[in-house]
């Protein structure tokens, strides 16, 4: 487990441990060390994202073919294939995207609206299609039989499901006044209780997720970081 002292890997592990402890120092109280490492993490994550977009997408799939650099050059200076002029069409969407930057000028900010309008149209269309693709199977699945022959468990499960669905939906009827003691009011109340149960499940699972993050970091601190720091002597 222990790597050579002060090697690149040693530094990686050392800094990883120090950063983890710095971030967890927030649990004791808000402090400058925590703030520094928090900003460092955000900065690194943003930097990596920019580099990744450029390296794996913009350069590889846009600029390289556009500049004709995806072709092999032979020793006599000729290319393996002629330049494909159709790649110049890439400039059109790039120009449209660049219109966004006109938002920074007062005089030409209307040009940015073309790009924004295009973006809104595309995302609106996608959202519409996505909603149907995602929700349709769930809607059809909601129509369940209340009684399944020879399967009491499934029958009870379906009854609970239909009860929860109808009562939770009834909670969101805001178009008429719900009179106290009437079925609409009672159903809405039951729906609220059902939703509270659901929120409880979400909250419980959130706590579990946070602790899972901690257990992984503890594993790193004890079994990797501790083993790499000879003065700690965590693992023999």
């Amino acid at each position, binding site marked *: 487990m222990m790597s050579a002292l002060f090697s690149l890997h040693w530094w990686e592990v050392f800094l990883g441990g120090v950063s983890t402890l710095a971030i967890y120092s927030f*649990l004791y109280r808000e402090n400058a060390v925590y703030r520094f490492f928090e900003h460092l993490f955000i900065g690194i994550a943003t930097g990596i994202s920019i580099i*990744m977009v450029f390296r794996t997408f913009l350069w590889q799939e846009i600029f390289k073919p556009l500049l004709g650099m995806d072709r092999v050059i032979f020793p006599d200076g000729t290319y393996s294939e002629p330049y494909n002029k159709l790649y110049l069409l890439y400039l059109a969407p790039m120009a449209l995207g660049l219109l966004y930057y006109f938002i920074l000028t007062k005089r030409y900010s209307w040009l940015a609206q073309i790009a924004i309008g295009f973006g809104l149209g595309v995302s609106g269309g996608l959202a519409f299609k996505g909603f149907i*693709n*995602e929700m349709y199977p*769930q809607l059809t699945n909601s129509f369940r039989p209340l009684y399944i022959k020879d399967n009491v468990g499934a029958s009870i499960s379906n009854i609970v499901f239909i009860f929860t669905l109808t009562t939770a939906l009834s909670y969101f009827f805001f178009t008429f006044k719900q009179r106290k003691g009437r079925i609409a009011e009672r159903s809405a109340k039951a729906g609220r209780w059902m939703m509270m149960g659901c929120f409880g499940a979400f909250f419980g699972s959130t706590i579990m997720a946070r*602790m*899972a993050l901690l*257990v992984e*970091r503890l594993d790193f601190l*004890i079994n990797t970081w501790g083993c790499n720091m000879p003065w700690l002597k965590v693992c023999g």
Partner: protein
Amino acid sequence: MKVIIGFLTFLNDIDRRIIYLFVAISLAIPLVLNVELPPAEMMTAEAFYGEVERLPIEKGKVVLIAVDWGPNTLAENKGQFEVAIEHLMRRRIAFALITTYPLAEPFMKSVPLDVAKRLTREIPNEHWAYGRDWVNLGYRPGGGLMIQSLAKADNLHAHLIADSLGTPLEDIPAMQGVKTIKDITMLMEFTGLAGALQNWIQFFQAKEYRPPFVHGCTSITIPEGHLYFASGQLVGFFEGVAGAAWYDTLLSRNYPNRLSSSSIRYNTGLAYAHLVVIAFIIIGNVGLIATTMQVHTKNQGLE
């Protein structure tokens, strides 16, 4: 009596840092002492296992794995990803990795290599190699648009062009017969990001074909995962660390010589920590009731 009341009042006002300390100790115990409790049986993880077990081993077909996780959800998603690709490698089913999340890139390189090395140590006669057993398609920006274009492409080689190292896809053995979405026998999606699973569910389908979906989620989105599982949009999924731990157990049953992964130890720690949290909830409530009763008694005395 005064001492008891004082103690109960103290319970109502325990410093949060004491709770953090107890939670951290309970999580660390299994890591230090190497204690492993058997994980609970998970129906959803079992369904995942069954689907992978039933996958046909065909040349020219791959399993597509969306690795949409990074350092922030590594604790849960890495274990899930490891056991799933280990199962595929053992069955010699080729898989392609892709991500819509830039910070996933380093793990797409390191995790399959680590799993392959571990398997080679376990079975010295066999080897797993990049290009033949798996391929890394890298980070692809564009979210839903990219996923939709992937599903609709009539020639994935022309559409994706190259892997993350710049090697043309037609030169990679695992990808040679993979031309359209119909050559993808299963989609695995591992994420803790909001909206990432929804993007794949919404857009990764073509006319008359949608590969079976399995999913590895973080604990936060378990209730959400059940919605998709009940409707058949997912045919199996991992419920956080617990799902990966149960999958690990299923693998160990079928491959007795394998070493268990970190998921089981993490799951054991989580079980202890849950007990600590429940204990503190009870203690806090006892303290609250005692304080309320004390105030009530005082008010009655004043009246």
